[in-house]
């Protein structure tokens, strides 16, 4: 499964990059979500995949009896998902706010900080 997922992550990255390079700020946000998903998956894959063996310690035992899934990347991905969500939510509201102020989501027209012709 790791090779297949590796390819899938590549597809997600390609889609994310393509969307982030678009003019529309909303497409940029779509790309941001895809990129954060791709990153999470990449961390997950790096810890290798184990089917049907969640990292749990059964009752009455001190350690898992047999091989279980790698717990460390799971913990990292959990944190990453939440932080990615925080980033996305903030970026989304920033876009909404920018549209309210500027009346456009086309990044080519958002030039308050660096106007086209400076004297």
């Amino acid at each position, binding site marked *: 499964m790791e090779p297949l997922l590796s390819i899938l992550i590549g*597809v997600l990255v390609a889609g994310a990059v393509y969307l982030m390079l678009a003019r529309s700020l909303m497409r940029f946000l779509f790309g941001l979500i895809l990129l954060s998903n791709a990153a999470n998956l990449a961390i997950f894959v790096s810890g290798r995949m184990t089917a049907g063996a969640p990292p749990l310690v059964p009752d009455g035992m001190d350690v898992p009896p047999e091989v279980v899934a*790698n717990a460390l990347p799971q913990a990292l991905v959990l944190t990453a998902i*939440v932080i990615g969500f925080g980033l996305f939510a903030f970026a989304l509201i920033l876009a909404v706010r920018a549209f309210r102020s500027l009346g456009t989501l086309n990044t080519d027209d958002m030039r308050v900080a660096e106007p086209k012709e400076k004297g």
Partner: protein
Amino acid sequence: MSGAIVQFLDDRANYVASSSSSHGWVTPAGIIPVIIAGALFVWLVQALPVIADGSSLRYVWPWVPTLGVNVSFLIDGLSLMFGLLITGIGALVMLYSAKYLAGHPQQARFSLLLTSFMLAMLGLVMADNLLSLFVFWELTTITSYLLIGFNHDSAKSRRSALQALLVTGVGGLALLAAIILIGTVAGTFELSEIRAMPGVLTQSTLYLPILILVLLAAFTKSAQMPFHFWLPNAMAAPTPVSAYLHSATMVKAGIYLMARTHSSLSGTDVWLWTLTIAGAATMVFASVIALRQTDLKQALAYTTLMALGALTLLLANDSGYAITAAVTFLMVHSFYKASLFLVVGILDHQTGTRETTKLFGLGRTMPVTATAAVLAGLSMAGIPPFLGFIAKELSYAGSLEVASSAMFVAGAFLVASALMFAIGGIVGFRPFFSKAGPRMEGIKEAKWPMLVGPLLLAFLGAGFGIFPGLLEVYLVDPTVAAILGEPGLAKPLHLWAGFNLPLALSVATFVIGYAIYAFATPLRALLVRLGDRSPSFDNGWDTLLAGVLAGAKWQTRVIQTGQLRFYIMVTFITTLVALAGTMVFRQAVTLPVAWSPVGLTDWLVFGLVLVGTGLTIVTQSRITAIAGLGVVGIGIALIFVLYSAPDVAITQLLVETLIVVLFAAAALRLPRLGAEPLNERWLDAVVAIGLGVSVSLILLMSTAGPIDRSLTDFFEASSYPDAFGQNIVNVILVDFRALDTFGEIAVVLVAAIGIFALLRSKPEKDEA
């Protein structure tokens, strides 16, 4: 701190200026610098007998011992001669300034700057450590900048000051680079140690870079062609500054540098020819242009250029005659040139003009000034028995000794000396005794503080000419020994050296010089006509500056397009080059041989995510795109479920739902997506696919290798025994890495506060 002091002194000067009328020149701001300079002068005079014996004084304090940087001072013949000029002329100029600027609201600032300059210049010529020499070098540049721009309400002054700062600043940087190279080659920054290692620099592979950098520093500071243009412009400074900095002392710092490094760097063809050509070109060019000027101060500025060229030319050689001539000429030039500048300052101060076409017949009303002017002018013209004559004879003798180019060098000296003769007459004689124009009436003689300096300096030129022995024993011989690195090479100073070729050249100089003086006015008209047609270095400077500014604007326009897409593109391309480039150049691409079997469920999930991604990319509908994102999110959650990550799957599902809801809510307030023309996006697609492929390859290769599970093993082994948790992932999050989770919560909280603030704030319509 220093600003506060300047302010305090300014206020003090204002107070003094208002409380005393025009005669009150005895102010603290006027007198303290004179006392400082005079005391230093006396201290240096005491060192004369010691140095004349052939020894030198060295004082060392460690500064940054780990880097081999000392504050070390060396007093030998060369630095003593410069030191005496700096403090001696300094004392006279400061006495002069006390009267010249009496009542000026910023006299205190002026005095502070002039005194700072004097100390910096003194440090420069006495520093034995190259790095401290550099610091003093830059300090003279800065004080010179501030003094040229002293009349800062004049745009011309500001421009001249900036020009001088930039030109000499470039030289300063070159000097720093040279010093670092010298330190690398010689292993020390102490000049006295470097000079004790003959050939250490000339035989090094870095000799040429070192030489170029040192000469760049010397030529910019001492205004050799093609860096000469800043010096005439520097005459925007008050006249005492011109006399002191831009004639007698600071502009000779470059000469000092060449003299100081003479024994370590000279003796090669590059040294000989660079200095000969630059010096000769500057000398002849400047003396011709000097004749063109009607402003006496400008004329003197160009003759200063001429003198600097002559000194450079003389320093090109190693012969005793040339170096003796250089040292003698340097001193006599400081005497008569400072004197003449001060005389021009007196004329300006008393009559209000410096135009040679207006100043006539002042000899009777200003007898003392006239005496100083005539004596200095005669010395400049090189007439016996003045010291200028001896210097000229030595220069001729020195140039005739240069075997390879004797006629060229002597010819250049002949032209320049003849023009000097003429200008000596124009400045020193014409304003006082010429009957070529109407006499100026009602002009008063200057007060004595302004007369002491020019008169004393002019008399020195005459006195040392008649009794050159004193000068020879105490100053010229030790200085020549210091420059050449061994004693006994200096030539004697004689007024009468017998009938020889230099004497014949002198006679020719007088004849040609007098002819030029007599026909100065028509010649000037001719030069003006010629000069208007030839390109000007000063305009070239403006073009250069404008070019630099245009280049900066162009660069800003190219790098900062103001387009978000451009910046993102640059980021992605950089990442792509870093990833793919590394793989290609290291030839690191090896695909895993064995592919583990993939089940039907895996394929289905794979297809689900693929479809979701595709949908998001191609659609123009917001709702479809959001749905596509939802599909992707659920697909990924399924992967987590299939591969033993239930906690992650729950979180992913929750977050994915929230994202879809938020997006759907926000989309109501946002415009439609709009079409993206595909033909404009092929580059985006190439970069995207390139990055995707790179990431895939990296993951394929990294997951094919072995994995280090030691951390996981630790967590598995200690999860229950240490933290009493059965869910290892949860234990990691809330126990082993609890601080991480705390940080994560803080991030979400900050994002929430930010969102709240953004939603509450009113849009500013005028922003758009």
